[in-house]
């Protein structure tokens, strides 16, 4: 650490890794599947140790999906697909950029500070965006649904889903007819 050729690139990576772990945990993937490690050009033995240890750790965790619980594979895939879209969304990226900027300004890359910052300032925006994406995927794939069905599918609680549905309908991305929600567009 602190030996980065680019001076601060590794610090930015710490923030990305933290949001990544929080997201993985949120969608039911063991966050230990993702690691961020340091080995400088002079540390070949350390690199070998890290990679060997990591591969055994992943072996112990088991295959993605099946190891996270029975029949979880498809749902995790859906979460992750929506996650990539959320990670592309301007709102989420702005929150992330702003956090990185603020932490850089403070100069304190203490893991606890990064973790707190991500929890408070980035993760909520990310989750909301991911659920919004999942709602749209859900409506597009299965047709009109009740909000309770959506909640069950996406794993979001019913109140949270309700709020996001309202927002999406204001943006005219979904509409409600009776107790059913419809996707607009695709």
């Amino acid at each position, binding site marked *: 650490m602190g030996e980065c050729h680019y001076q601060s690139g590794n610090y930015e990576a710490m923030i990305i890794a933290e949001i990544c772990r929080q997201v993985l945990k949120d969608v039911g993937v063991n966050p230990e599947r993702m690691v961020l490690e340091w080995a400088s050009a002079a540390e*070949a033995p350390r690199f070998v140790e890290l990679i060997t240890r990591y591969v055994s750790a992943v072996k112990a965790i088991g295959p993605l999906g099946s190891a996270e619980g029975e029949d979880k594979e498809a749902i995790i895939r859906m979460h992750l697909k929506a996650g990539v879209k959320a990670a592309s969304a301007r709102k989420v990226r702005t929150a992330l950029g702003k956090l990185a900027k603020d932490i850089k300004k403070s100069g304190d890359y203490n893991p606890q500070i990064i973790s707190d910052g991500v929890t408070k300032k980035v993760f909520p925006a990310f989750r909301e965006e991911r659920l919004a994406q999942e709602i749209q995927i859900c409506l597009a794939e299965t047709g009109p649904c009740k909000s309770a069905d959506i909640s069950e599918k996406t794993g979001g609680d019913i109140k949270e889903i309700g709020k996001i549905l309202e927002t999406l309908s204001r943006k005219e991305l979904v509409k409600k007819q009776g107790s059913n929600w419809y996707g607009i567009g695709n």
Partner: protein
Amino acid sequence: MTGGVFNPHILGFFCHWCCYAAADAAGVSRYQYPPNVRVIRVMCTGRIDLRFILEAFGCGADGVFTGG
């Protein structure tokens, strides 16, 4: 999985100057380590976008090792 043994499919993002160089040096010294990691070289770990890691898991990676 082959023959009941789980052989994880792992994607690595290695920084050109640090981890990638360390991995090269490990080769020069002929250290041996498990062959499960496929490496994407980036100039800096700071290049790694959240989308890349999520996409990798979305595509079925059992693990993502980012090394700076």
